[in-house]
């Protein structure tokens, strides 16, 4: 597959849109009443209400899987959007000042990018802003770099700004995280993140020098073993390799385990659509099942249902409390 960031981004987007279209189409075929009814049943089954469990037996599995996948996808999408909102709040609280150094201002003007300075001691530089991408460099990073290395950082980030990378990163992460049940998309996202960095590295090195960029990368590459994700080290090494040897091979795009899991996810979706069911969710049907369930299970069943409900509610409340406390901190 191509190593061009646009191509990888295109593949990722196309896959996500195709999945979204398939799900939306299948969900639309179920109809609003069907989806709401099934969603209620899934939530009910999760909280182990006897009535809903009894009702589940009547509903074709394929429709349940479809609505479950649609709900999980929607939840993951909203979760990523919420994380993005939190990130925006952090960024808006970050103290920013325009660059003061005349040499750096000249580089920024030549690279045609807005650069801001933040007084952090950490070595970091990044580009943010969906509509108007801006570059932020920490004063800690500037202090550790020579003027040529500082220019390399600005050129690197300018490339991200010109390619509107923040917006593309958001879309790519939304696509990969929403369809988390197709982990191959995650591999595509990782590849996109890698090739966009390689492209920006190339641009920076062409305006300054490989040595300058190497110096800048050395300063930002603080080893934090606790954060190391599986395979992430390979990606970092591949990026450095490319800095010195333009034709060095990149790591394998898709991991076997991810391909296998993606195949399972795709098959589940395909099956739910092939065996689309006709639903009969009339008012009478609900009533009958509820009466049946009550008469079969009686009080012990209801008590068990209430106990599980209470356990889930307590867990949810504890989780919310912890989240609120973390946010306050």
């Amino acid at each position, binding site marked *: 597959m191509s190593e061009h960031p646009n191509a990888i981004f295109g593949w990722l987007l196309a896959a996500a849109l195709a999945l979204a279209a398939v799900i939306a189409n299948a969900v639309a075929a179920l109809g609003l009443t069907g989806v709401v009814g099934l969603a209620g049943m899934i939530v009910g089954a999760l909280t182990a209400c006897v009535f809903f469990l009894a009702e589940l037996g009547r509903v074709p599995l394929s429709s349940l899987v479809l609505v479950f996948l649609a709900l999980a996808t929607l939840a993951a999408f909203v979760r990523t959007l919420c994380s993005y909102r939190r990130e925006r709040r952090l960024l808006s609280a*970050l103290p920013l000042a325009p660059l003061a150094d005349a040499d750096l201002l000249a580089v920024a003007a030549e690279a045609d990018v807005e650069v801001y300075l933040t007084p952090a001691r950490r070595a970091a*530089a990044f580009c943010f802003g969906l509509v108007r991408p801006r570059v932020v460099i920490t004063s800690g990073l500037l202090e550790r770099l020579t003027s040529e290395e500082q220019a390399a950082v600005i050129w690197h980030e300018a490339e991200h700004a010109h390619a509107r990378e923040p917006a593309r990163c958001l879309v790519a992460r939304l696509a990969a995280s929403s369809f988390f049940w197709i982990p191959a998309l995650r591999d595509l996202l990782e590849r996109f993140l*890698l090739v966009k*960095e390689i492209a920006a590295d190339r641009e920076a090195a062409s305006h300054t020098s490989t040595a300058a960029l190497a110096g800048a990368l050395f300063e930002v590459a603080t080893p934090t073993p606790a954060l190391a994700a599986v395979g992430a080290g390979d990606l*970092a090494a591949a990026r450095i390799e490319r800095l010195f040897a333009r034709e060095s091979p990149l790591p394998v795009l898709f991991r076997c385990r991810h391909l296998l899991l993606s195949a399972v996810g795709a098959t589940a979706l395909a099956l739910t659509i092939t065996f689309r069911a006709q639903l009969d969710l009339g008012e009478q049907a609900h009533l009958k099942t509820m009466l049946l369930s009550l008469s079969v299970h009686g009080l012990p069943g209801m008590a068990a249902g209430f106990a599980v409900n209470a356990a889930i509610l307590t867990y949810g409340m504890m989780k919310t409390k912890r989240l609120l406390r973390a946010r306050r901190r």
Partner: protein
Amino acid sequence: MEIFWRRESATVREVADQLNRKRSLAYTTVLTLVSRLWSRGLLEREPEGRGFRYWAAKSREDFLAELSDELIDRLFADFGAIGVARVGERLSELNERERQRLKRARRKR
């Protein structure tokens, strides 16, 4: 905090007077604000009369540096950055051999 950075130290009454030049705030509101800043370690105090005299625990520069360090740490925690492209993407997992390679490639200063 601006007030405490501009003048060396102040009592809650002095802060309230200064704030009231721009907008009207009750003494108790200012007292709550100041005590909250103190409990977060941003202010220090010693008893004076019936109340306390407060002063900034850190200079403006130190405060802003710590704030931006914390915000940046939170921004990048666990690859958390979503709509941000950064120069150090994935480089925190770089192995020592590659790090040394970067160091060697760097021009002698």
